[in-house]
C-alpha cells in the first residue's frame, strides 16, 4: 500500500504533472501532423529524460505515447489523411461526418472514445500484468527462447503484402543484432576491429534512424513541390459537452467494449499494434453491428471502433514489455530503451523489486488519459493550427533533436553516424516497399532468442530436447509452428485467389 502512495507522490508532484501535460500535448501534435509519428515523439523526448528520475522520465514517455496515438484522429477527420497509421480507419467515417457538417461531433466522439479505450486498457494491464509476472518469474532460458521464436514467427504472419520482404526485414534486423560480443563464449563478431561496435548497435540509434531520419530524407523527395493541404476549420464553440448525447454514449458501449478487447489483444501480440488493430476493430464491429451497412457513410460507430481500439493497444502493448521485457511494437521498443537508460530491466522481477515504479506507470497512465481528454478537446483549435506548420522548418529541427538524442546516449559522435546509417536503411526500405517494424522486432527479439538458446543448451548439456520437454517452452514452439503453417496456407490460398483474379481480368 505504501508503494502506491509513494507512486502517487511521484506522479502528483508539480514537476511530473507539468511534464505529463507537456508530453500529452506534444504527443497529440506528433500524432496529428502527417509524417510525424508516435515513435518519433517518444524517441525525440528520450534525451529529455536522461537527467530525470526514472519514474518521472518514463511517465513523460508514456504520456507522449498516449497523446500521439490519439492525436492521429484530428487529421484523420479534418484532413482525411490519417496522422498516424493507427487512425487509418478513423478516416472512413470521420471525413463523411465532416462533410455532413458533423465535424465537431466526430472529433468529440473520437476524443472521448480514445480516452475510454486507454482507460479500459490500463485496467487490463493492471489486472493481467502482475498475474503474468508471477508466472513469468519462474521462466528460464528455455521459455524465453521459445517465446522469442514464437514472436519472430508472428512477424512473417503480419508482413501483409510481400512475405519475402517482411521476413527479410526481420532477418536483417536480427543480423544487425548479432554485431558485438556474442553470448556465452564472448567471441567478437562483425566489429571490423573497431571498439565502438563491441557493444553492438544501440537500440535507440536503430529506432531513431529507421523511424525519424528516414522520414527527414523522405520529405526531401517532395519538398520542392507546393503543398495545397487544406485544413477544414470547425468551430467547437457551440458544442455542449463533447458534442454527442448521453444516449449515443450508452448505445456505443457494446461497440467500444468489443473494440477495446480487440485493441488489447492485438496490442499484447508482439510485432503488431494499433496500426493493425484499428482496421481489424473497424471491420469486426462492422460485421457485428445491426447497422453495419451504414459504416463508411458517416456514423459515429466507425470512429468509436477505430479510436477505442488504437488507444486500447497501449495497455496491451505494455503487458509483454513490463512482464517479459518483450516490446510489442516500435514505440514500446523505445520505451524498453528508456527503461534501460535508467538502469531498469523490465521483466517479472520489476514487479517484485521495483513495485513503486510499476504503480508510478499505472498512475501516470490514468493522469495522462485525463490530460489527453481535456487538452485534445479544449486545445483543438491550437492543434489544428499546428497542422499548417511548414515541413521545411519542422524536419531540420527534428533532425537536430535526433542528433542530440543519439549523442546523449554515450556522448560520442559514433552514435550519430549510426542513426544516419539506419536512416539510409529506412529510406531504402521505403523505396523498395519493405516494412520497417519487422526489422526492429528482429533486432530486439533475435539476440534475445540467441542468448537464451545458448543458455538453455548449457543448462540441458547441449541437448535440444529441453526446449520441447519444458511445457511452456514446448507450447510456444508448437504455436510458432502453427503460426508458420497458417501463414504459409494463407499466402498459398491468397496466391491462388490472385491468380484466378488475374485470369478473369
Amino acid at each position: 500500500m505504501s508503494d502506491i502512495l509513494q507512486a502517487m507522490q511521484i506522479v502528483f508532484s508539480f514537476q511530473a504533472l507539468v511534464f505529463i501535460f507537456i508530453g500529452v500535448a506534444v504527443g497529440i501534435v506528433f500524432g496529428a501532423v502527417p509524417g510525424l509519428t508516435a515513435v518519433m515523439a517518444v524517441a525525440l523526448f528520450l534525451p529529455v529524460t536522461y537527467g530525470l528520475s526514472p519514474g518521472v522520465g518514463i511517465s513523460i514517455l508514456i504520456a507522449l505515447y498516449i497523446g500521439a496515438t490519439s492525436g492521429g484522429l484530428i487529421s484523420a477527420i479534418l484532413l482525411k489523411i490519417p496522422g498516424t497509421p493507427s487512425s487509418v480507419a478513423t478516416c472512413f467515417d470521420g471525413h463523411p461526418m465532416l462533410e455532413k457538417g458533423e465535424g465537431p461531433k466526430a472529433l468529440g466522439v473520437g476524443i472521448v472514445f480514445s480516452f475510454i479505450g486507454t482507460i479500459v486498457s490500463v485496467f487490463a494491464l493492471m489486472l493481467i500484468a502482475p498475474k503474468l509476472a508471477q508466472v513469468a518469474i519462474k521462466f528460464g532460458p528455455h521459455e524465453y527462447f521459445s517465446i522469442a521464436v514464437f514472436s519472430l514467427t508472428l512477424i512473417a504472419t503480419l508482413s501483409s503484402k510481400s512475405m519475402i520482404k517482411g521476413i527479410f526485414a526481420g532477418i536483417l534486423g536480427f543480423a544487425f543484432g548479432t554485431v558485438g560480443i556474442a553470448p556465452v563464449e564472448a567471441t567478437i563478431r562483425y566489429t571490423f576491429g573497431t571498439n565502438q561496435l563491441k557493444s553492438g548497435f544501440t537500440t535507440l540509434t536503430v529506432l531513431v534512424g529507421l523511424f525519424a531520419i528516414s522520414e527527414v530524407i523522405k520529405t526531401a523527395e517532395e519538398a520542392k513541390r507546393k503543398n495545397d493541404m487544406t485544413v477544414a476549420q470547425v468551430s467547437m464553440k457551440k458544442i455542449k459537452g463533447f458534442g454527442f448525447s448521453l444516449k449515443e454514449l450508452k448505445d456505443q458501449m457494446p461497440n467500444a467494449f468489443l473494440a477495446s478487447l480487440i485493441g488489447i489483444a492485438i496490442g499484447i501480440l508482439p510485432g503488431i499494434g494499433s496500426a493493425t488493430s484499428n482496421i481489424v476493430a473497424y471491420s469486426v464491429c462492422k460485421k457485428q453491428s445491426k447497422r453495419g451497412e451504414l459504416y463508411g457513410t458517416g456514423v459515429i460507430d466507425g470512429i468509436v471502433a477505430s479510436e477505442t481500439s488504437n488507444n486500447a493497444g497501449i495497455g496491451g502493448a505494455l503487458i509483454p514489455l513490463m512482464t517479459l521485457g518483450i516490446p510489442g511494437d516500435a514505440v514500446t521498443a523505445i520505451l524498453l530503451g528508456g527503461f534501460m537508460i535508467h538502469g531498469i530491466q523490465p521483466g517479472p522481477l520489476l514487479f517484485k523489486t521495483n513495485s513503486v515504479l510499476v504503480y508510478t506507470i499505472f498512475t501516470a497512465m490514468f493522469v495522462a488519459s485525463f490530460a489527453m481528454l481535456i487538452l485534445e478537446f479544449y486545445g483543438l483549435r491550437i492543434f489544428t493550427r499546428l497542422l499548417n506548420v511548414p515541413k521545411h522548418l519542422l524536419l531540420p529541427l527534428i533532425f537536430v533533436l535526433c542528433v542530440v538524442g543519439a549523442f546523449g546516449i554515450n556522448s560520442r559522435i559514433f552514435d550519430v553516424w549510426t542513426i544516419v546509417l539506419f536512416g539510409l536503411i529506412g529510406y531504402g526500405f521505403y523505396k523498395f516497399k519493405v516494412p520497417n517494424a519487422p526489422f526492429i522486432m528482429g533486432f530486439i527479439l533475435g539476440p534475445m532468442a540467441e542468448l537464451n538458446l545458448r543458455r538453455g543448451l548449457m543448462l540441458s548439456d547441449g541437448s535440444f530436447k529441453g526446449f520441447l520437454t519444458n511445457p511452456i517452452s514446448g507450447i510456444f514452439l508448437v504455436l510458432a509452428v502453427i503460426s508458420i503453417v497458417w501463414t504459409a496456407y494463407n499466402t498459398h490460398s491468397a496466391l491462388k485467389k490472385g491468380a484466378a483474379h488475374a485470369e478473369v481480368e
Partner: protein
Amino acid sequence: MRMKKYSELIFGASILAFGIFYFLLTNQLPRKGTVDAAFVPYILSAFMLLLGVLQIAVGVKASKNFDEKNYKPENLDYLTVLKTIALIVIYIAVLEPIGFLISTILFLFIGFNLLAPAGEKKNQLMNLIIAVLASVIIYYVFRNGLNLMLPQGILR
C-alpha cells in the same frame, strides 16, 4: 528511368549480396563446436540467400509483366534527396571540430532553404532567426538543464 521496372529484381540482388557478405564474414569466425557464436549467423545467412533467390524470381516475373504503357514515372526530386544527405553528412562531420552551436545554426539555415517549396517567397531573416534561436535554446537547455554536454568545438 526504367528503375521501376527492375526494382523488385534489384532488391532481390541486394538481399543476395548482403547474404553473401554476411556469410563470408561469418565464415571467418573461430569455430568452437556445433552451437557456437557462428551457429545462429549461419542460419541467418542461409535464410538471406534463400530469400534473395526467391525475391530474384519474383523480380524476374515482375519485370516481365511490367506494364510499360500505363506506367507514369514518379516525379520525385532525387537531387534534393542527395543534397539533403550530403548536408547531413557534412553537418555530423563538423559537429565535433566546429562545435554544436555554429554547425547547427548553419545546418538549420541551409536545411530550411533546401527543403523550402519552390516558388514560395523565402524570408531569409526569419529563417536565420529561427535557426539561431533554436540552436541556442537546444544547446543551453541540454547543457544546463539536462546535463548533456554537447560538443563545444571552437567556442571553448
